[in-house]
């Protein structure tokens, strides 16, 4: 054995697809650009400020954690950045910087790292932060800037908020097309359903999300609100309104489909999507909060391990008996 250099020993397979965690994370982040562009169109520079600040905060905090606790954590693998951008899309564009900081802290520390870092978290970090902020600062989190208003001082409620507080009359004038485009008050990611769909379709083509969760989620919301609307149109808003307002599209396409916190098996995904939709409708129609997407997703996040365990995919060569 007189090789100058040694042969490499490794386990098969000796080849890989070029996909990587980084690539997935950055692609998902990039697919949010259309929605951000629409948000910029309606809210102006404050959008950029919010997104940049939360991204810097989340990546910075993750980097600090990596420095202090575990140098195996790669703060720049894109997951922290994605959390930051998604968090920004869940907040009003006029949020003060310290709120963004607290949000980022909660998202990275409470939402992710205390569970053991990337891949170990049970709940979607961005949603954990959003709910934390919503509970802690209810006033700041429910006064949204009006689209087109140049001053941050002009604030109002989201269409869903109006529906909750003022009843069905308040939304009667609203045009569904306008809502779909995003011309309404709300967080960055709530407003333009169509732009979000665009990004979602891109991700679907790239196979980074699957159809089960979004379809079941949105479908359940549509069907359930439709049933209520048909039963009593004077009390409940029509399903199209529910589809395009609030964080439903953002939640269904980006939050619920988050790889880490969604089930792996086919049946699990179906149940997960249905559960998200079901709880969203229940909270929207009968809860005290106007919007229920984040709570619904967090609730379903908690049962993901159970779904994976009790609804596994069919194995090869296993015949169901009885």
């Amino acid at each position, binding site marked *: *054995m007189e090789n100058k250099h*040694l*042969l490499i*020993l*490794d*386990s098969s397979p000796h080849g890989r697809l070029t996909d990587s965690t980084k690539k997935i994370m950055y692609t998902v982040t990039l697919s949010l650009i259309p929605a951000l562009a629409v948000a910029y169109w309606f809210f102006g520079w404050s959008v950029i400020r919010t997104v940049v600040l939360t991204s810097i905060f989340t990546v910075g905090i993750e980097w600090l954690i990596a420095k202090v606790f575990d140098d195996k954590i790669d703060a720049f693998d894109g997951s922290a950045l994605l959390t930051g951008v998604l968090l920004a899309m869940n907040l009003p564009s006029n949020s003060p910087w310290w709120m963004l900081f607290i949000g980022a802290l909660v998202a990275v520390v409470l939402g992710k790292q205390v569970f053991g870092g990337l891949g170990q978290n049970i709940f979607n970090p961005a949603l954990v932060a959003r709910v934390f902020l919503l509970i802690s600062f209810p006033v700041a989190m429910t006064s949204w800037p009006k689209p087109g208003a140049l001053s941050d001082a002009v604030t109002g409620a989201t269409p869903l908020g109006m529906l909750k507080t003022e009843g069905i009359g308040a939304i009667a004038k609203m045009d569904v097309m306008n809502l779909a485009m995003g011309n309404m008050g709300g967080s960055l990611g709530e407003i333009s359903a169509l732009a979000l769909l665009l990004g979602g379709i891109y991700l679907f083509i790239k196979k980074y999300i699957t159809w089960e969760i979004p379809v079941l989620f949105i479908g359940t919301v549509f069907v359930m609100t439709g049933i209520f609307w048909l039963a009593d149109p004077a009390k409940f808003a029509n399903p199209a309104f529910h589809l395009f307002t609030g964080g439903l599209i953002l939640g269904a396409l980006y939050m619920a489909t988050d790889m880490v916190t969604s089930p792996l098996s086919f049946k699990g995904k179906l149940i997960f999507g249905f559960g998200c939709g079901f709880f969203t409708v229940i909270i929207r129609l009968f809860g005290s909060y106007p919007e229920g997407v984040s709570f619904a997703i967090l609730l379903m996040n908690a049962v993901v391990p159970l779904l994976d365990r009790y609804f596994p995919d069919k194995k090869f060569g296993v015949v169901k008996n009885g």
Partner: protein
Amino acid sequence: MFEILLPGLILGGFALISSTGLFFASKKFYVEEDPRIEKVVDMLPGANCGACGFAGCQAYAENAIHKMSLETTCPVATEEEMFQISEFMGVDSGSGIKMVSSLMCNGTDANTQHIAEYHGIEDCWAYTLIADANKACAFACLGLGSCVTVCPFDAMKIENSIVIIDEEKCTGCTLCIDSCPKYILHMRPAGKTVTVTCFNTDNGAMAKKACNVACIGCMKCEKVCEDDAIHVNDFLAKIDYDKCTLCEKCVDVCPTDAIQVMGGRVHVAAENV
């Protein structure tokens, strides 16, 4: 007055009924448990490592009391602890010799060469699924630390790509013995520090070619030993620790330094002096 008396009576009556129930229940469902078992468990180290072969200290104690013997000793307990238990039970305290784990290899980077560049999972068993050896000597320690992972007492570490065992910390629980895919760890009495640090059963020339400190089966140690404690089989020396008196003559005479005094001086080959 009646206001206090009535609840008192009701509660008292209720207490009487329940306590009667409890009394009969305790008679009916009485389980006899030897109180000595608990005492023995208290005296054991409580590591629950299962090294004795039972499912934890409780099971060990139950067995010991049941059979009234300490034939299977607790390998983790010190001699004093075992003595205490034997005193308490009034039986002999087994063999009572502390054993430690010992590596039959000295294939450090300096003594033998790696033959490949390994990129897989850091685990000896994972390595054996890819290839049988990673050093020129096919019997050598792989140095990927499966035994280190399995050791509950932090007594092992990898240095120079072989395992170093801290005899102070080693309790002789034998967990590492089964964790080694090359089977080059063995147990020896703690005091008997003279060991053959080789496991190569190839003939002398091949062994020497593979590793500088391999046992080449030259029989010098067997000849020099006055206690008939060392024998060469399959080109490999083996020490009978029942007979070894630690005279270290074999250590001095070994031409390849394949016999070492563990924890003592590092020996220089006799020829080189």
